[in-house]
């Protein structure tokens, strides 16, 4: 059993209190970030007719928005490192709002790409990263639970938006709807207002646990103390780095690329994201292909969203339990592999009942993975480096996220059968899952070894210190003849 948690944040996270209000804020921000691009698709048909463009040209709006959201990650990280979460989220909310208002007055499709796509996407990026980061500052012990609850925002907001968007569309057409959505999205500013910077005055009493030097941004906190391997170089690098490195690296931590856990996570997720979103996108078309009618196909998505909604907090709760928390990377690997297995088995599902079963299992898998996605990263790099880590991860994930659905679509078109796409997605998720299992087994072992080594070093130091004290005592006593020499 790894030693008890040594938080290296320099303060005790509240793990409650105002933290729960922050979770509500994060819930809203994360919900908008993920659900907003997906929910806009309801307007595409009319906009397509209005501007007389093809469907793929209109679908680009969603892609540009998603791409900007992921590409804006590093910018968001830099701003959060500098200014904290609250201002960034509020600015993000304002940006999306202005983007939607401008879009409602748009006269060409390029106008929409720029407003909704680029500005809107960046605004959402400024919501997502800070929301995730601030949870890490408020929670340590209950962090998986807080993460799970916050990530539940995505399916909940999506489910609320679906009928809301339909209502807006029927009442106001697409222009008016964009205008009203611009005001609804301003609620992200309310979420930002809730993200009060954490009170760092409650200090950690350094009576038990080894003293460690801090190096500002290079400081770490880890449950299993994965920081052991990089905490030592940090103090020397700290002052030297800010002088010799460029301006940017002061705000974004590129030393993460030397962090084993981060590299494992990054390499695994790059492959994983190729198969992450595609099955959701193709669930309804696959169902229709099997012969179900449009309403039953839509019902499948609702079942999926409902299961997703409930499993996220439950996963957070499980991740928090004392059996799972120290080995949470295994839980994460399990979630990834389970997704893969689910997709590989999907082609075996026959008839509508089979599809319902698949939707339920896929909802479980998707929810589990989403709830743990950022918790795993936080667990690996620690709350202080998380902001930079998530920025780097999202910009690198940008590629697979965007390419995933079109590749799957191409697979479906070439083979005229959905099962090859499901096999491909299954492989894309199963291989990283197994990769995670193996790599984290070695990583945990290495971390434990280093922990034991550093504990040994410290106990040696203590002994050496004790020896010196004794020697000094002896010399002192002999010097001043306090010892009875007989």
């Amino acid at each position, binding site marked *: 059993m790894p030693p008890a948690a040594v938080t290296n944040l320099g303060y005790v996270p509240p793990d409650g209190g105002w933290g729960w209000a922050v979770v509500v804020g994060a819930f809203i921000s994360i919900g908008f970030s993920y659900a907003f691009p997906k929910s806009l698709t309801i307007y595409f048909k009319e906009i397509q007719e209005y501007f007389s463009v093809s469907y793929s040209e209109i679908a680009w709006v969603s892609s540009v928005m998603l791409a900007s959201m992921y590409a804006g990650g590093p910018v968001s990280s830099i701003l959060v490192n500098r200014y904290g979460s609250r201002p960034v989220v509020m600015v993000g909310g304002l940006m999306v709002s202005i983007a939607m208002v401008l879009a409602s007055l748009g006269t060409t499709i390029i106008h929409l790409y720029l407003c909704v796509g680029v500005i809107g996407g960046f605004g959402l990026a400024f919501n997502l990263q800070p929301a995730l980061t601030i949870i890490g500052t408020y929670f340590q012990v209950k962090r998986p639970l807080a993460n799970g609850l916050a990530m539940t925002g995505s399916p909940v907001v999506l489910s609320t938006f679906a009928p809301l968007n339909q209502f807006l569309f029927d009442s106001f057409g697409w222009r008016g709807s964009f*205008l009203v959505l611009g005001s609804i999205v301003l609620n992200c500013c309310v979420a930002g207002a809730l993200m009060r910077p954490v009170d760092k005055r409650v200090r950690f009493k350094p009576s038990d646990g080894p003293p460690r030097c801090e190096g500002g941004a290079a400081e770490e906190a880890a449950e299993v103390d994965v920081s052991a391997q990089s905490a030592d170089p940090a103090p020397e690098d700290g002052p030297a780095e800010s002088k010799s490195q460029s301006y940017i690296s002061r705000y974004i931590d590129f030393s993460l690329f030397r962090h084993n856990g981060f590299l494992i996570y990054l390499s695994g997720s790059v492959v994983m994201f190729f198969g992450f979103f595609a099955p959701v996108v193709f669930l309804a078309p696959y169902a229709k292909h099997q012969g179900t009618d449009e309403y039953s196909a839509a019902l499948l998505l609702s079942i999926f969203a409902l299961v997703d909604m409930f499993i996220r907090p439950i996963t957070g709760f499980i991740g928090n339990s004392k059996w799972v928390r120290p080995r949470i990377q295994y839980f994460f690997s399990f979630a990834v592999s389970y997704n893969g297995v689910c997709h590989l088995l999907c082609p075996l599902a026959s008839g509508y009942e089979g599809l319902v079963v698949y939707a339920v299992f896929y909802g479980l898998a998707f929810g589990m993975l989403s709830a743990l996605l950022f918790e795993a990263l936080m667990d690996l790099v620690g709350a202080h480096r998380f902001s930079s880590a998530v920025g780097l991860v999202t910009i690198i994930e940008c590629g697979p996220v965007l390419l995933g659905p079109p590749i799957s679509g191409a697979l479906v078109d070439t083979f005229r059968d959905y099962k090859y796409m499901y096999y491909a997605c299954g492989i894309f998720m199963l291989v990283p899952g197994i990769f995670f299992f193996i790599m984290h087994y070695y990583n945990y072992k290495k971390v434990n070894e280093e922990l034991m080594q550093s504990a040994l070093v410290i106990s040696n130091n203590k002994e050496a210190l004790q020896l010196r004290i004794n020697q000094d005592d002896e010399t002192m006593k002999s010097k001043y003849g306090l010892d009875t020499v007989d």
Partner: protein
Amino acid sequence: MTSSWKQQLVQVLLVLVSCGHGDTKTAAPTPTPLPPVTPLKQDAKSAVLTGKNFTERVELSSPVNMTLSCTWKGDQDKPPNITGHWRKDGQEIQDSRVTVMLEDENYKLIQVFSVVSEKDLGNYSCVFGNEARIDFILEVLQMGEKRDKPVVSYIRDFVVMTCKVEENKPIPTTWNWYTSNGTDKEQINTTASKRFKIVSEERETKLKVKDLTLDDAGQYYCGAVYPIGTSVGQVELKVITFMEPLKPFITILIEVVVLVAAILLYERSRAKKDSAEGTQTNAEQNTEPQGDDKGAEGNDSVRQRK
């Protein structure tokens, strides 16, 4: 083979009958022009009646010789023969009464109708005795996606309204658009009014109305013209001002501002209360300086000095 002989006999009879009377009051089936210039297509629809009533819809796009056959299982008591006749739109077709024999426990009525123009469409019924009836509703091809919700657009903006025919259905000869003028339908003339523009492809037609005004709101009809008749689809247009969505926009904006202000004010008052208490506790402790960010920095320097 016998049925086709019967068909021809009936056809000839009908021709003689209609030539003799020339009565247009009773909805008599139009006689086949003899000889037909282009041979009409043949089609057949049949239905089996087990109860008292049955309805079948038949969609047509071009002129056709439609053979309708009805089979009736009969009542409790099955008399060896009963009288059956045909109706069009509720009215009995003249001289269509025949005696039907019971064959294999069934009564059968077969009739061929020549459907060439729009007035030949309607509700054709075969009636057994006085009660049992099968209705064949012959109508023009209906259009695919029926849009039951109105299209919304804004003043001085433009709108594009679409009508489509499904993939597997035949292609209309041409498309027309109509606007409602009281109870009438008035065809839209694109040369006369420059604000209207119609772009029609094979299976799809688009009406673009520019420079909208509140008067433009209402029902618009798209007509797909087939040889047999015109299939009409309906699109409703709603024109609103930009004030309409602006009202909820401003409401939600106010709500957001109020919430943000409330949260920040609450925090301000909490911070004041805390700092009031904090100065008391600070006097007891002798290490920590106060303030959020300054506190962290100050502590950093304290620790580094160690």
